[in-house]
């Protein structure tokens, strides 16, 4: 799920999956066609592959429902890396940080950016209940 970079991204994806799930038992809706309108190209490719729908025109509602629920659980179980930052982070910066992560780290994480103006600059990193303070405020003992 390389296209998922932040906790926010994962929440949006879960909403979309839930919406798709709600369409399964509606007789007047073509679920497979809906995938193309609900998800982005990147998400669509990943979803079709994970649901085993490549080249398929039909599916079993119960099987699809179970697979979607499983996907939601998988998304929810992704490891979260909380990063406290002094100012709100922009999309371009998220891309930049993700690139660095993909290049330098082997694990898959979701960034959760939390604004804390007290840290001045740098970042405070939290993972699995542990905290590492690499902020300017801590270096200046403010």
């Amino acid at each position, binding site marked *: 799920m390389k296209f998922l970079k932040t906790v926010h991204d994962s929440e949006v994806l879960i909403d979309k999956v839930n919406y798709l799930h709600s369409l399964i038992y509606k007789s007047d809706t073509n679920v497979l066609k809906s995938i193309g309108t609900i998800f982005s190209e990147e998400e669509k490719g990943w979803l079709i592959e994970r649901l085993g729908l490549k080249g398929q025109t039909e599916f079993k509602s119960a099987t699809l429902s179970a697979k979607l629920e499983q996907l939601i659980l998988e998304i929810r179980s992704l490891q979260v890396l909380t990063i406290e930052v*002094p*100012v709100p982070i922009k999309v371009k910066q998220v891309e930049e940080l993700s690139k660095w*992560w993909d290049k*330098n780290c082997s694990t898959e994480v979701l960034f959760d950016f939390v604004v804390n103006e007290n840290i001045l*600059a*740098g970042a405070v990193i939290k993972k699995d209940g*542990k905290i590492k303070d*690499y902020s300017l405020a801590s270096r200046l003992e403010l």
Partner: protein
Amino acid sequence: MTDTTLIINSLFLLLFLGWSLVIYWRHKEIIKLEKSLKKNEQGLVNKAFKDSEKLLEGTLEKSEEFLKENEHIVEQIKTDLKRTIQELLKDNLESLKGNSEQSTISYKSFLSKSQDIYTKQLSDAVAEMGVQLRKQSQESRVELDKKLNEEYQKMLTDIEQYRQQKRQEIDTNVEKTVSEIVKKVLPQSLSDQDHSALIIQALEAAKKDGFIA
């Protein structure tokens, strides 16, 4: 020198300048406060001394007045005593007419001696009272000086404590203000690129520490 190092150095320089300004400002505040305290302190000391001097002078004046009044009363008593004795003598002379001349002279002598004894006792008592009063005034003055000195020392201690407290308050306020200013200004003065570079530097440090992999 890398961009990140340059940013960090710039931040430190900015903070150093900020702190220098704050220290200068704090120094000015302390000098102003000390001047004001010194002025108040001098005023208070002068007032205390003036008040005590006034009090002492008043006490001494009252003592002198009291002694003068006593002297006047003594004179009055002496005159009254003399007159009473003379009246007593005059009244008794009539009844002594039948007695011998010797008895009359003895009686006159007795009255005269009695007058002298009473007058002397009275004068001695008044003189003793004056001595005691002056002694007490002197003791009061010494006691007052001692108390005044104690109060002055206490006042100096209080002023020093107040000064320390004010310095502490200024320090706390300055630190709080600087901290607030830095917190508001610094994050905004850095570009997105600077922030990203510093966050990446934090991630690199976390990786080096084995916190992330």
